[in-house]
């Protein structure tokens, strides 16, 4: 910001003017669209179709725990649990996690069975942007259940340059 002769340098007014300029710049930066390779939400929908097939996808039974706001997208803890008795007759066969805006929509697919006793899996994932994450659970009777969670990411993963 150019020095204004009317405002003595180091004064409170010049300080306020400077910080306002910095804040405005930061706000403008954060709303700029970042050019990058990103899986569009359509890619996620396509992946969901591929996993689920023609079966209906119902909301419920699945619980997806992710923090709503994360500072660093490089490691976001994620816990997915499914309400199921986990008996040989009725259990969860697979759980898939998909996301909207990472370069690839797929995050993880786990296969489990009645010997797990409890349908609950924890891991840590990378998030390239603030986005929606979905968990899909495939039951032994062939039905699919889902839950989703929105996460705001302050510092994105994956796309930063690496110092070598």
């Amino acid at each position, binding site marked *: 910001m150019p020095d204004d002769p009317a405002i003595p340098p180091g004064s409170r007014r010049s300080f306020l003017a400077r910080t306002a300029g910095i804040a405005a710049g930061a706000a403008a930066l954060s709303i700029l669209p970042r050019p990058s390779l990103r899986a569009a939400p359509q890619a996620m929908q396509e992946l969901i179709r591929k996993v689920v097939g023609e079966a209906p996808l119902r909301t419920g039974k699945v619980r997806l725990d992710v923090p709503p706001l994360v500072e660093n997208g490089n490691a976001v803890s994620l816990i997915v649990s499914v309400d199921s008795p986990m008996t040989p007759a009725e259990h969860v066969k697979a759980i898939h996690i998909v996301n909207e805006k990472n370069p*690839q929509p*797929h995050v*993880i697919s786990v296969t489990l069975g009645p010997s*797990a006793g409890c349908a609950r899996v924890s891991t*840590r994932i*990378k998030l390239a942007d603030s986005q929606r994450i979905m968990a899909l659970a495939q039951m032994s009777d062939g039905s699919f259940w889902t839950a989703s969670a929105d996460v705001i990411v302050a510092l994105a993963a994956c796309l930063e*340059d690496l110092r070598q």
Partner: protein
Amino acid sequence: MTRALINVPATAKRGDIIEIKTLISHPMESGYRVGTNGVPIPRDIITLFSCVYNGEEIFRAELSPAIAANPFLAFFAIARDSGTLAFHWSGDNGFAVTETAAITVE
């Protein structure tokens, strides 16, 4: 040397549901990053993890680049019999690590 940490209870009552936690050191390089020289950094990830309990596969995970570095996985199993749990990670560039843990079921 790849380091893997495994947390399995040493003893359990028959029928108990036990939690198994695993962590392995691995960069999980996504393949989407560019180095300072402008050259893309090739993908190097673990793609598959499995846990075999006394010969029966009880858990399997297919991982994507979206899994954070040093993959952490925690899951559950029913303690049926004493024996061993074998954990296997495999991935890009011929990465393959197997670890075992013993469990005593009373």
